[in-house]
């Protein structure tokens, strides 16, 4: 599908990313909850399920989920800042840059530690 001309700008794309990641997470949640409650009813099937996590495809799916969560998290922070903080555009850019910088540093640290 071609992106319609009036949608071809960063804020609209950020909106769509936020919506799609939110939708995907909402659909994933019931599955996540169900699997966890197996601990209560059938611990052995939970163990078998968790064993799947060594499979590369499952690893990729795990990464995808964490990625979705991170995307929705930052998209949400962006929205809260836009709506509740009457900042100038320059201040917003600086704030976003400092958050990104902080995550770059702490992310690198985390990867080193693992």
């Amino acid at each position, binding site marked *: 599908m071609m992106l319609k*001309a009036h949608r071809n700008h960063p804020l609209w794309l950020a*909106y769509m990313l936020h919506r799609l990641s939110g939708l995907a997470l909402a659909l994933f949640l019931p599955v996540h909850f169900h699997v966890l409650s197996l601990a209560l009813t059938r611990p052995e099937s939970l163990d078998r399920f968790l064993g799947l996590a060594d499979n590369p495809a499952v690893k990729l799916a795990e990464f995808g989920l964490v990625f979705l969560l991170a995307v929705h998290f930052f998209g949400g922070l962006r929205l809260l800042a836009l709506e509740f903080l009457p900042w100038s555009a320059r201040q917003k850019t600086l704030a976003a840059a400092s958050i990104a910088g902080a995550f770059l540093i702490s992310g690198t640290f985390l990867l080193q530690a693992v």
Partner: protein
Amino acid sequence: MSDRSKLLEVSVWRGMGDEGAYETFQVPARDNQTVLDVVSWIQQSADPSLTYRYACRVGMCGSCAMMVNGVPRWTCRTHVKRVLRDGALQIGPLRNLPVIKDLAADMDPFFDKWIRAGGVHRPSRSRDDPIQQVPPDDPGRVEANKGIECINCSVCYAACDTVAGNPDYLGPAALQRAWTLYNDAKVEDRQAVLDSVSGAGGCHNCHSQGSCTRFCPNELDPLSAIAGLKRASARSFFRRGE
């Protein structure tokens, strides 16, 4: 130097109501030519039955907005050269509004929502009272000034996908008007302004897609005005302790 032999490939929406299709015209290209010039040329030289709307031709009346290559624009101040794609133009009626005929959209829903958002001045003083002094550098006045150049062209309304998905949504122009009133020292009942934009179709439905601010021909910022309304209504939500 103008090249008299050059032609533009212009497809124009023709039809009434929901029915219609694009019809293509060959229009002579000029050195200096607005999209409205092109539409006028078609109506005057090719097909006199073409219906469209304009008045001032200088970007003040807000009546000539149309979709140009998929983007809402004020056609009288949009130069063809800036928007031409491969020598072609596609011109349609404004999005998100019913079509009356051809390029003339029915503006009623747009103005009805302007009224529903409380876009009517309710003065706090009568003619017998002394004139209220408003210092130009008062913060509220500065905020209100940002929105007063709106010409009601409905470009923001046509650009907004929240309007497209949610027919009750008041839309960027009406909400920006409410934000202007909320900041106007001459409006006494600020809470009434907030209440009229806090209902089912109000400012809280906005997804901050920002197409309103991006396409506003007067470079106004409805996105920030709506954020201002959200902020003000959130504050009043806590004050009232609901």
